[in-house]
């Protein structure tokens, strides 16, 4: 009996005169299409139940990124998204930054955006901007004005600090805001960018609506996100074992229910977007995870941390308080120790993901 399968990702793209979506998730080879999925919340009843949880979800997301962004940045730099790799390649942690930049460029290329910076977008919104990696890159590439939004005050602050440090404060600015209620007027941006943030949005319809609302006529929307597989015509929902596994991932990463690529396409079509294009980039992001795991396994010395507050009971995600001694890097970790760990399929192999973190751990 095998275990879980990581959801496939689909890449969506819609072109002029409307936005496009890109999706991506790691894992999943084309030959093995048993995929993890979570039931799409299609009914109003389901949505009502979700609305109650949204406040807690938002808070959880903000805190999660408040807590972990510093550590992430230490190891992975200022891009908080997957890299884009040649399939089946083996990469080391040091290749990741180039791959993460390649991800941005591949997304732009898929969307048909011009390589010519003079013909590129002039105003950009970065929805779920993290610490602003994409925004600063796009600001430099196109000499565009980029505005980023995130739920995490720590991230927004860091993003602005990095922009200032890089002399980009006039081109890239960041604030705390909700992607479901963007603080911008209609039609302001000619590029609407959502790089690996869509998976956090509890209300996909609202999320997409807002992306479209703030997009100018003729604008491009790019979404790179994690989706579950499209359901077969005879299916109403994912398989129970798929739902169960995906649920564990959702709990670990503060993710609401997933939807499929087709769900996104339908939303975009309902808003009369044109040139909607999708693609599955699973094979291109799969090499990301072994690098992550290897970085966890190549810890050098680790000194004991100060206090750690761990909330593990009930399957909740750990809320970690990090402290770093000078000069020591702490490995990327996932969720809480001993959580029913999830299994990733990466390039056809199953790897259990160890949840290794600081205290309450012994020194390695």
């Amino acid at each position: 009996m095998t275990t879980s399968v990581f959801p496939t990702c689909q890449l969506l793209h819609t072109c002029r005169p409307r936005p496009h979506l890109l999706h991506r998730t790691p894992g999943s080879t084309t030959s093995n299409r048993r995929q993890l999925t979570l039931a799409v919340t299609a009914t109003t009843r389901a949505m009502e139940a979700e609305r109650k949880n949204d406040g807690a979800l938002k808070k959880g997301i903000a805190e999660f990124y408040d807590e972990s962004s510093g550590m992430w940045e230490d190891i992975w730099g200022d891009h908080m998204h997957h890299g884009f790799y040649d399939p089946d390649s083996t990469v080391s942690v040091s290749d990741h930054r180039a791959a993460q930049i390649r991800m941005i460029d591949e997304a732009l290329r898929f969307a048909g955006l011009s390589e010519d910076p003079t013909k590129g977008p002039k105003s950009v919104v970065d929805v779920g901007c993290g610490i602003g990696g994409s925004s600063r890159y796009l600001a430099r590439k196109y000499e565009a004005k980029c505005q980023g939004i995130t739920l995490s005050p720590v991230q927004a602050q860091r993003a602005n600090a990095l922009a200032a440090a890089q002399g980009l404060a006039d081109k890239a600015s960041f604030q705390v805001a909700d992607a479901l209620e963007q603080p911008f007027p209609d039609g302001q941006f000619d590029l609407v960018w959502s790089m690996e943030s869509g998976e956090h949005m509890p209300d996909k319809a609202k999320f997409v609506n807002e992306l479209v609302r703030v997009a100018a006529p003729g604008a491009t929307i790019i979404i790179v996100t994690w989706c579950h597989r499209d359901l077969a015509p005879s299916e109403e929902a994912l398989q129970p074992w798929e739902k169960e596994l995906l649920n564990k991932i959702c709990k670990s990463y503060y993710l609401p229910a997933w939807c499929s690529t087709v769900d996104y396409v339908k939303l975009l079509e309902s808003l009369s977007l044109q040139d909607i294009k999708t693609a599955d980039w699973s094979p291109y992001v799969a090499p990301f995870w072994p690098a992550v795991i290897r970085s966890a396994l190549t810890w050098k010395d680790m000194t004991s941390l100060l206090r750690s507050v761990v909330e593990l009971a009930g399957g909740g995600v750990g809320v970690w308080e990090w402290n770093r001694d000078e000069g020591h890097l702490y490995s990327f970790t996932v969720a809480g120790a001993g959580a029913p760990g999830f299994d990733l399929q990466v390039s056809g192999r199953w790897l259990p993901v160890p949840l290794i973190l600081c205290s309450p751990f012994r020194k390695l």
Partner: protein
Amino acid sequence: MRLLTHNMLSSNIKGVANGFPLGIEVEKVIEKQVELSADFLRNLFPKIEWKALVDAARTMGYAELPEEVDSSMLDSNEFLTKFHHALLELHLEEGALVCPETGRRFPVTKGIPNMLLHEDEV
């Protein structure tokens, strides 16, 4: 909770000199198969506290691990299978982990240990 995790966990209660390894109180163990990755096991091997793993596995009802190991055994499929099984396929679903010095119990519920320390333990 896998034994991989148990092998990394320690009681860091204030005043405890050595909180590793945690004792295991078993109420419910389940087995979940997962595909073996030799590379993964070989990478992990140097980080594993072997005696703690052997003892923990035995507590969970699995006594097949050799007491003594060396890295040459990583070439043996038979050894890797046992190592894999003990480390990754045995799950403590219900029970507790126990601080070796203070006896403080950390309950394990639905496979998740609650390592939350109280204010006075920090």
